[in-house]
């Protein structure tokens, strides 16, 4: 009876869906993404995602540069975890060159990669908290990230866009006081982790906004190409570090956190736990690492020692050719993949035998996640868009390349 009355009233009120642009410049979008939302009241009926507002022509640029000159461009793909991109690209080119790097280089790459992953997760948590108006958690997370960046700066020379990886090795060895710096930072980072748990994880407002919103089932996630923490939060335990180990991930002990419900809260918890696991990986790696060479000694790839460059004609010619013509990579195609900050980061590289790449394609997790995000948004409310978009962690540089 009451329902009939309400139905009669609804028929008389003329309403039509409203189209709202959440435009490219929006405080709650992690990068520049434009959502065209068709709304019925507060509910999103249809969401159209438009990316490309940070398209900088990575592939076209790299086709005109040598293999080593591509490293700064790879930094700026997933700019919160630049070392992971550097090493992913180096791994792909080394696969095509069929060269092996020494053990110490693999350990260094593991350690620096996990530091970058720490930076990525701290940024995601901080920015996510900021957009839900938890400013304190943001400041704590950024303080943690500053500590990580201090260490990265001591090793590589730059805070964020480092260009540390090289084909066949890394730029420089770790400094002697790395162990001490890490001990101090580690204590503070775990402290920040515990404080963030206390601030957010059982907070009524945080739970209301994050639990039950943005739910993804495992089949949906795989069908729409999700990988990384997003896929793991639905219950599928797929982590490239465990399934296809590279660097030294098969010599360290770590667990891969897997969620159950696939909602935003699970994605938040997965990232919080991965922080702790990354800290543990770095601890174990520092214990197991042995001194040794950090670069391969293959003369096709490595610059000769400075003594030889200045004092012998062969050294000078070798140096000249590698720098000006680029490393001569044999012709062929290869697809190599690593675990990036947001998901599986892959590089599909085509070489035509010269010193410049013919094609370097990035399998970017952020771009693929944007393809399926309308499924998560349709049917929910506008305010659920914010935590969903935060925890998917789309990084603009990687999405648009």
């Amino acid at each position, binding site marked *: 009876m009451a329902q009939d009355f309400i139905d009669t009233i609804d028929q008389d009120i003329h309403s039509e869906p409203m189209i709202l642009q959440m435009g490219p410049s929006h405080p709650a979008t992690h990068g520049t993404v434009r959502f065209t939302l068709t709304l019925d009241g507060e509910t999103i009926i249809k969401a159209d995602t438009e990316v490309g507002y940070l398209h900088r022509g990575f592939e076209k640029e790299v086709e005109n540069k040598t293999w080593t000159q591509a490293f700064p461009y790879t930094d700026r793909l997933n700019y919160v975890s630049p070392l992971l991109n550097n090493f992913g690209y180096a791994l792909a080119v080394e696969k095509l060159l069929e060269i092996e790097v020494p053990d110490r280089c693999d350990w260094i790459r593991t350690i620096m990669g996990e530091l970058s992953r720490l930076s990525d997760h701290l940024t995601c948590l901080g920015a996510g908290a900021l957009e839900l108006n938890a400013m304190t958690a943001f400041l704590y997370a950024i303080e943690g990230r500053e500590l990580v960046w201090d260490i990265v700066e001591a090793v590589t020379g730059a805070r964020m866009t480092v260009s540390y990886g090289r084909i066949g090795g890394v730029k420089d060895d770790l400094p002697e006081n790395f162990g001490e710096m890490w001990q101090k930072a580690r204590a503070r980072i775990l402290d920040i982790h515990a404080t963030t748990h206390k601030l957010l994880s059982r907070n009524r407002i945080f739970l209301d906004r994050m639990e039950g919103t943005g739910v993804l089932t495992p089949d949906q996630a795989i069908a729409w190409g999700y990988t990384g923490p997003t896929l793991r939060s639905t219950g599928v335990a797929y982590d490239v570090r465990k399934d296809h180990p590279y660097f030294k991930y098969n010599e360290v002990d770590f667990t891969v956190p897997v969620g159950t419900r696939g909602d935003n809260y699970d994605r938040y918890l997965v990232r919080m736990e991965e922080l702790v696991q990354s800290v543990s990986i770095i601890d174990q790696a520092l214990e197991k690492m042995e001194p040794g060479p950090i670069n391969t000694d293959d003369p096709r790839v490595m610059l000769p020692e400075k003594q030889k460059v200045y004092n012998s004609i062969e050294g000078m010619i070798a140096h000249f050719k590698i720098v000006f013509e680029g490393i001569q990579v044999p012709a062929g195609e*290869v697809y190599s993949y690593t675990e990036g900050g947001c998901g599986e980061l892959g590089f599909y590289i085509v070489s035509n035998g010269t010193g410049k790449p013919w094609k370097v394609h990035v399998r970017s997790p952020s771009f*693929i996640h944007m*393809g399926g995000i309308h499924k998560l948004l349709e049917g929910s409310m506008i305010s659920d868009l914010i935590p969903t978009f935060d925890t998917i962690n789309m990084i603009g540089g990687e999405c648009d390349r």
Partner: protein
Amino acid sequence: MAKKLIDLVKRKHKDAVVDSHNRLGDDTVIIRPEHLIEIATTLRDDAGAKMNLLRDITAVDYLNRVPRFEVVYIFYSIELKHQLLVRVLVDEDSCKVPTLNEVYPIAGWLEREVFDMYGVDFTGHPDLRRVLLYEEFEGHPLRKDYAVQASQPRVALRARERDAVEEFKEYVQDERAKGSREQY
């Protein structure tokens, strides 16, 4: 990795495979566009393959080769942990490939990027428009015959102009030179 995926594809689709190899550990089959959907369906549904994750779709422009383009599909199975690359030969003139949107939902989004950058047309696609560039852009930038710096601005670009305030300060320069006690 044994070549069981390549053997599976060759067994079920006898005349589809043009070439195959296993260089550097990447199983690859090279096919023509007509057989793409059936091969993808086999890979997804067959119990020996179970390739439920479409990792990526990309294209390569081999400039002076016939056929000019190749669209590369990377399939992966999360359970069985194996991967297959399927390379589809595409001519420059026809430049058409059937869409995989029905088999893998993410394919629609990835195909839009290949269309945007290379101009390959995906027949049967529900909504084939540009994804990284804007509607007014003409041409397909990742083709090898597109110049790197050929930009197509959307807003009329301005030449640098002097600041109004700087001009005002020059105007009052004379006053200062005359020994005025005022600051301006």
